[in-house]
């Protein structure tokens, strides 16, 4: 029984299973990484480079998609809102078109200097009583009340005779408070002490016809003088001719990015072909080609840039974009050519290339399989550093007036225009300057990140 007892435990099938013999000693926990996957992974972990990449993508969207969303014509001049900073008040009142003034007065008479009609941005019409001893008058306008220094502000006009006791001011009237002063003059045009001052608050107006033609109101609504309207919206303000800054920045970005991307692509491509030919052929060909590259590097860059542009014979008013690209390609390729040649010379002597050659690899195979992939990192990095450089050159040339022709805007030419009004209307300079800075910085940081990411020697550090 003991036997039977010892045989009595029969486990149910399925409760226990025989232990399997271990087959694999170790297991890979991730799939193998290609060079590009690794580069991308490292680029992603570099936060600066990643942000720069987003900025670059954002810039491209701003340039390409922006004009589809913000459909204002960058050349359209809104003369009612010249040099307005962003966020300025836009309310205005509709009025009749301007008519020359016959000197009549619609407002009640008051002694001294007075308004003939309500003051509007169309015209401020002043009447005054004759001043003692005057043989003529001079009219001043100030934006400050009278100060102890006796500065009366802008001299607007002089009358020819003492009989003229009225003046119409139409000069650059803004919706604000002005202080007008009329001063009596003697026979020689010297100022007498007799004077009269008036504080005037100017209301912004726009004529019905202008409002309709600019689409501020619909003609069907039968707009009447006296109605209130909102002037056109300019989110980033306007420039010295009332052109929309945002639209101009978008179109300016087109020029800047077109040149900034087109020119480097072309000259890096040319430099790569040139440099790899020199490096691969070696010997006398190499010597000859590289001496020519040295010669081109030695040319004074800006001078030749300007000479090229003139030699291409751009007619009046034609855009100088294409000649600028051609000039850049002609002058900037040698740096890439040198880099690529050096890299090719190095790769050519590597063991695996020799091995491939011994195994009977053809030139085509060597170039496509070994040379190009091993120099691509260098080329890409050159390209990303060339882009901000080209943008900067374009901005500089436009800044000194050698760039695009008006009315085409470019960031550089916008800066050039903005710097003249820097003290009074800083937004005209700040916006394009900030755009140039951000773009150049983003491309530089991206290039920096790419260099780290594409460097095959840094692969083993993690």
């Amino acid at each position, binding site marked *: 029984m003991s036997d039977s007892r010892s045989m009595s435990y029969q486990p149910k099938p399925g409760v226990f299973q025989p232990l399997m013999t271990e087959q694999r000693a170790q297991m890979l926990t991730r799939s193998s990484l290609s060079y590009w996957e690794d580069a991308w992974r490292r680029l992603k972990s570099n936060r600066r480079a990643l942000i720069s990449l987003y900025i670059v993508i954002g810039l491209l969207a701003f340039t390409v998609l922006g004009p589809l969303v913000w459909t204002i014509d960058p050349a359209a001049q809104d003369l009612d809102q010249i040099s307005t900073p962003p966020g300025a008040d836009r309310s205005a009142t509709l009025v009749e078109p301007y008519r020359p003034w016959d000197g009549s007065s619609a407002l009640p008479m008051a002694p001294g200097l007075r308004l003939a009609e309500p003051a509007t941005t169309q015209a401020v019409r002043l009447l005054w009583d004759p001043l003692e001893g005057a043989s003529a008058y001079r009219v001043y306008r100030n934006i400050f009340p009278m100060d102890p220094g006796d*500065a009366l*502000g802008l001299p607007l006009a002089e009358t020819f005779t003492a009989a003229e006791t009225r003046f119409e001011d139409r000069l650059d009237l803004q919706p604000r408070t002005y202080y007008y002063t009329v001063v009596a003059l003697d026979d*020689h045009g010297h100022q007498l002490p007799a004077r009269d001052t008036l504080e005037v608050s100017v209301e912004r107006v726009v004529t019905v016809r202008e409002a309709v033609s600019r689409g501020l109101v619909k003609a069907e609504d039968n707009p009447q003088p006296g109605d209130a309207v909102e002037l056109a919206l300019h989110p980033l303000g306007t420039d010295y001719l009332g052109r929309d800054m945002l639209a101009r920045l978008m179109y300016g970005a087109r020029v800047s990015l077109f040149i900034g991307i087109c020119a480097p692509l072309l000259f890096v491509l040319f430099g790569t072909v040139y440099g790899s030919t020199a490096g691969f052929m070696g010997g006398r060909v190499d010597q000859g080609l590289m001496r020519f590259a040295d010669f081109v590097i030695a040319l004074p860059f800006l001078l030749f840039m300007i000479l090229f542009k003139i030699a291409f014979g751009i007619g009046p008013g034609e855009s100088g974009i294409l000649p600028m690209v051609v000039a850049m390609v002609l002058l900037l390729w040698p740096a890439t050519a040198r880099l690529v040649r050096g890299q090719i010379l190095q790769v050519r002597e590597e063991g695996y290339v020799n091995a491939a050659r011994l195994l009977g690899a053809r030139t085509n195979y060597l170039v496509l399989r070994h040379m190009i992939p091993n120099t691509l990192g260098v080329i890409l990095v050159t390209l990303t550093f060339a882009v901000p450089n080209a943008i900067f050159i374009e901005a500089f040339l436009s800044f000194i*007036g050698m760039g695009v022709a008006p009315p085409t805007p470019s960031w550089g030419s916008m800066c050039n225009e903005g710097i*003249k009004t820097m003290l009074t209307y800083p937004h005209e300079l700040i916006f394009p300057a900030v755009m140039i800075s951000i773009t150049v910085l983003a491309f530089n940081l991206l290039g920096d990140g790419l260099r780290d990411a594409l460097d095959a020697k840094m692969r083993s550090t993690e």
Partner: protein
Amino acid sequence: MSDIANNQDDFTRSAGRQLAIFALSSIAGIALLMLGLSWASDLTSTGSGAGEAVDAATGTVTLVLNEEPPQLNSTKATDQVSMRVLGHVMEGLLRYDEDNRLVPGVAESWEIGPEEAVFHLREDARWSDGQPVTAHDFVFSWRTAVDPATASEYGFIMYAVKNAEAINRGELPVDALGVTAVDDRTLRVELERPIAYFDKLVAFVTYYPVREAFFEETGGRYGADADTLLYNGPFEITSWVHGASLRMEKNPHYWDQDRVHIQVLDHAYITQDPNAQLNLFKDGKIAYTTLTEENLNEALVQGWHLHRFMDGSVFFIEFNHREGRVTRNWHLRKAIQLALDPAELVYRVIKLPGYVPGESLFPIWLQGVESTLRQEYPAPTAQMDPEQARRHLAQAKQELGLAEIPPLVMLTGDNPISNKQSEYYQEQLKQVLGLDIRIDKQIFKQRLAKMTAGDFDLVLAGWGPDFDDPLTFGDLFASWNLNNRGRYDNPELDRWVRVAQSSTDPRARMDAFGEIQRIQFEDVVVLPNYERGIVYVEDPRIEGMVRRAVGPDPDFTNVRIVEGS
């Protein structure tokens, strides 16, 4: 892994520290360098004496020149800067005084008849080397000015003198010019035709004297440097550093010593940059500067006493009337006239007080018979009218047999006002007429060359008066005038110009100008844009500066330093 990360953190931190130290030390270094440099520049500037705008102790007034005079040979001078400088250091037979009246200069008396004029020179007129100014000096300079070998651009202004035109064309020898020195102090001039304004002409820069012996000594470099020029005016140039400074000192040999109150007029800076000029004035380095629209606000904030002055010149769009140009078509010109509003240009775009919207070729300050010419002959004006402009454009297309007007080239100068103006017009003509305008921006010399060659459709041009008579504007578009760059040719206008030139009856002449003004408007010869104004500010410590539309401007000859301020 964490070890490496820690190491990296340490590394980043120490690198950051190093970077911060580097940045700090470089900022400190730059600050130190700037302090040192400013100290050094203080040392040098007190050394040269170009410190204060007005120095009462030495009688010095410091100024800025907009640009360097190309040269100071009075027979060849054409630009405003040369004329300004020459007006201080030279004197003609007559000159304009501080009230802009014509007064005796080198000549103390004169008689002008229909056929000849005689000038009696004063005895005490001296060159800066002490020798007397003689009638021969005038004969020599006038001959030089009309000599075709001199190629003076102002040769035509001598045409009032007998045979001048023929000599200038090379048809007669130079000594055939109708001017003779009867003796050292008597100058006789034969006139080509009776001329009502010859006294005004001889005050012009081209009529200034030049001493032959000195001219020959300079070997063709007359007027190129301070020491290759002889002076007979209130001042002499004592140093001229090209592109940097030009210093004038009182001329001890000048006959009218009483009217010169200061010792030195130091043009210590030569710059065109309005911001640089503004800063120099703000720092008390110069005694006078003009202001641009962009700087007006700053001037108001500073509380300066601003002055306004109209310099007398008229600016206009000139059309190319040459054969084969579309702008030869009257309807196209009329369309452009009706599409533009000079008032909007002046009040909204240029925004400088002093500018007056252009209505006529003749500016508002010209004198007529009794009052001003423009009051006696009001200029016909066009109201901006887009619909009618488009009708004219359609007719122009029909007459020219074109479906579209080809892009028009608008030639313009390279200065801030022209830039604004041309871009404004470009958009305006695009909006109203759908015309394509190509802006051809050129520097002054190049623009002049292109204007002369007729290489434009429209050009933004201007004209300043040479003498105080409406004819200085009136004969501009006569078919023979070389300054008629568009080659406008209209026998009717020519006829009226002849009347204005040869008549001595003021009424008949003014009628002629009225007719010229009417033709200019009706035939749209040019489109007046504006009359130029200048806003300027001067140091309160000086007084007596003279502005004038005709003659050297601004004139500091009579400036005095006000005591006690």
